[in-house]
């Protein structure tokens, strides 16, 4: 299994209307590891993902994905993205969406098996707008995995899910890690970060203010205390 980093971000800076959104953020993600970005709303987590997918151009710093810049053909072929919310046409059915996404890749996951594994079958032909939040999240996760990515961005993948759906998602994310995929997980759920992450990066006001394994960060106090000590509150 490849172990060298597939994502290296150095001193990434972005501002909107003069307000810094990313203020020198550094991050490295390696295959077979879950790298969590844990931070309050407005900390810059989603902006960082948008930089990595080429939607936002950093004003300074560098981002390297599989040796290529964000948005390049090489990066796009090997990256999977689960957006924070929706991410699909309101009238499309999950089956149609996943078959369409599969057509964008040379060697996609078999859609029927993916649908079965994520429990999408019962609502495969229901328009996306009529799905529950949990069902939409399942479809979004399937969409992120259908192209057999080497790096997956999961932007708050379990926000709004009930406990059972959350556990199912965590189990699948762990399988994806075990298969050698690098995962960047954004969350503000301490328990999720503690359960899944190999490395936690606490982000506040666009920069990493603390990082390490959960064991390293919680040597003296629990993760919530570490989070509070290293963040300044929501900006959203």
């Amino acid at each position, binding site marked *: 299994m490849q172990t060298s980093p597939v994502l290296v971000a150095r001193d990434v800076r972005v501002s909107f209307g003069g307000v810094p959104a990313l203020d020198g953020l550094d991050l490295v993600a390696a295959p077979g590891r879950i790298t969590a970005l844990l931070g309050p709303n407005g900390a810059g987590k989603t902006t960082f993902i948008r930089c990595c997918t080429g939607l936002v151009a950093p004003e300074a710093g560098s981002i390297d994905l599989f040796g290529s810049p964000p948005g390049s*053909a090489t990066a*796009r072929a090997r990256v999977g993205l689960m957006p924070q919310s*929706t*991410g699909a046409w309101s*009238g499309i059915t999950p089956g149609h969406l996943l078959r369409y996404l599969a057509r*964008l890749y040379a060697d996609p996951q078999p859609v029927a*098996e993916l649908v079965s594994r994520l429990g999408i079958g019962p609502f495969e032909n229901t328009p996306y707008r009529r799905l529950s939040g949990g069902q939409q999240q399942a479809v979004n996760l399937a969409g992120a995995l259908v192209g057999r990515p080497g790096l997956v961005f999961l932007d708050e993948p379990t926000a709004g899910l009930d406990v059972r759906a959350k556990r199912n998602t965590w189990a699948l994310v762990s*399988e994806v890690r075990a298969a050698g995929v690098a995962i960047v997980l954004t969350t503000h759920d301490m328990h999720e970060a503690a359960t899944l992450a190999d490395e936690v990066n606490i982000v506040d006001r666009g920069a990493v203010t603390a990082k390490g394994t959960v064991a390293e960060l919680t040597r003296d106090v629990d993760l919530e205390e570490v989070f509070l000590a290293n963040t300044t509150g929501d900006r959203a």
Partner: protein
Amino acid sequence: MSLDLSPTGSAAPRTQQVLAHARTEALLIARNGEQALLALVIPIAILLGGRFFGDRLDLPFASTAPSVLALAIWSSCFTSLAIATGFERRYNVLERLSATPLGKTGILLGKALGIAAITTGQVVVLAGVALLLGWRPDPDPAHLLVALLCAVLGMAASAGLALSLAGTARPEVTLAVANLVYLVGMAAGIMLPVARYPSWLQPLIQALPTGALGEGLRSGTPLSILVLAVWCIAGLALSRKVFSWTS
């Protein structure tokens, strides 16, 4: 059931990607009831009205039929495209797809192909209905060539304006403005010939994309090609400058 999740990601051939996107966009637009109303129901109603009552309004059917084809282009390539794209931004569809092998260029290519396919189908159906109702288009090859060029340029110009609107405004605003502009455009040259306006207003109507498209299809006015080419360049350049992929 276990999946092989090992990372082997690679992109499909470019043509396959773009065609997959075009097909999906076209199917979603075709299945949308409101879009069908704009695309076929209203134009066919106008064709029927023009055929049986147009003379009373001094609008001969020979003029109404090409006007309706211009309306089809205007409704699909401006109104429908603007509304669909506005909601794609809202629902993070563009954000998700720009991270796939399709990328931004592929999205635009697929979108253009999809809307062109829808519009072509619409024009074929409406032209067929018009022919059944007795329309006999001018067989002059020069007129036909001008009309064809105007149709293609009108589609691109309308699309550029649609993307400029959808790429900057909130989708609710896009929805309202696109429908309002659709109605204004109908009056400003699409359905109503330029000659029906006061002489002082005619140059302005002729200089609008709607006026140039309508006149190009009705009268084969060569000036329309130039006007639409300018709108085409301006619209696409503006959309490239202002379009935001996220809402």
